[in-house]
């Protein structure tokens, strides 16, 4: 059982390094990060992870005894905040909302996010290692065409479906109709509030008259 977390970390490290090896922009970014270390303390689940950078990739090490002085930057967050960060949420927003705490060289976290999230993998080179340059190029070109066809088909399907639902079958209101309806509802809400305030004022006047002594 002692080896399960070690195995998971080893797999994660291997995956990251394999992906980084396929990104033509990674060596430059790694050169700038080489020698730096980032201590990531997750709250739920409780985990201290030391991320070390070197010119060929990164290293992940479970480091429960690591101290702040061992790292150039220390990040404390929960899994949800880390997920949001990796999904592209602004670092400032996460910090100011209290979901993530960062000490030390703050730019290191931004640089790490850039390194891992801006991966532009050269799949064609990977295929070329297996099949050779010409077959790999043909295969990659075929895959690119297929991907373009898929994207175009998806866009067309969405447009056609929207046209049918909103314009032809009129099953749902369109964007413009929804906005008009929303404006009308807002007007109605304001008018109702006004009416409620008037009624309350009239009620107060009536109550005051009832309490006045008969002359």
């Amino acid at each position, binding site marked *: 059982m*002692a*080896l399960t977390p*070690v*195995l998971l*970390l*080893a797999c994660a490290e291997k995956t990251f390094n394999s992906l980084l090896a396929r990104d033509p922009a990674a060596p430059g970014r790694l050169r700038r990060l080489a*020698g730096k*270390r980032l201590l990531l303390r997750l709250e739920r689940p409780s985990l201290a992870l030391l991320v*070390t950078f*070197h*010119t*060929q990739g990164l*290293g992940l*090490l*479970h*480091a429960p*005894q*690591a*101290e702040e*002085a*061992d790292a150039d930057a220390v990040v404390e967050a929960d899994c949800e905040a880390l997920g949001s960060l990796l999904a592209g949420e602004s670092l400032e927003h996460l910090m100011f909302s209290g979901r993530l705490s960062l000490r030390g060289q703050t730019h290191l976290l931004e640089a790490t996010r850039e390194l891992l999230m801006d991966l532009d993998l050269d799949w064609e080179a990977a295929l070329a290692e297996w099949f050779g340059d010409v077959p790999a190029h043909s295969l990659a070109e075929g895959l690119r065409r297929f991907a373009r066809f898929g994207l175009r088909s998806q866009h067309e399907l969405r447009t056609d479906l929207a046209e049918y639902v909103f314009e032809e079958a009129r099953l749902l209101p369109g964007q413009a109709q929804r906005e008009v309806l929303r404006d009308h509802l807002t007007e109605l809400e304001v008018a109702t509030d006004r009416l409620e305030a008037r009624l309350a004022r009239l009620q107060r006047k009536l109550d005051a008259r009832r309490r006045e002594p008969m002359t």
Partner: protein
Amino acid sequence: MTKRTTHFGYQEVPVEEKAARVADVFHSVASRYDLMNDLMSLGIHRLWKRLTLERAGVRRGQSVLDIAGGTGDLTLKFSRLVGPSGRVVLADINASMLNVGRDKLLDHGVGGNVEYVQANAECLPFADNTFDCITIAFGLRNVTDKDAALASMARVLKPGGRLLVLEFSKPTHQLLSKAYDEYSFRLLPRMGELVANDADSYRYLAESIRMHPDQETLKGMMERAGLERVEYTNLTGGIVALHRGIKL
């Protein structure tokens, strides 16, 4: 006068011969050592070494001695952890293994903070209280006088420093032990013959594992060498154990 003997696998050999015989084994397997390790352990030796690295708790600027470091798996990782202000010494009694390790580390771009020393673990050529951490992975069972080696390691450790011994040990389950015996004495020499063209060396590896002290005995030996808070973790059902002791 009777000659003092020690075990070399299952054979009894004169004490002064063992180091040379072990050296022959490692000269023979050095070039294919990593490949054979991967094949023999199905790659699990990398996880055992990773755990050793985690338990070592090495920090920036510290000095580390990797004894019997062989092809430099641990040294590579340690050199990145201690950084340019730290120092890692890769020591091995065997020149062939040391050469393979040095070439591999240079290929990985590791140079500045690593030193290479051909040394016998029983009489380490370093001053007292030199290292923050010492590791010996799969090396102690090949040492002729293990007590002398542990005492020598304790001597060169700084107070507060830790010694980690990663070594084959005794499986904790009967069934696993039988399966492991079958694997070690039947399959392992055949694999050695196929991959390294050297069945005898791999038969010696299997025999030397059986002759190595079990978990509790090694713990006692480390305590007698002057280490404290000695503890061990069984890995893969006790096939391997990681012992850690601290010099206080």
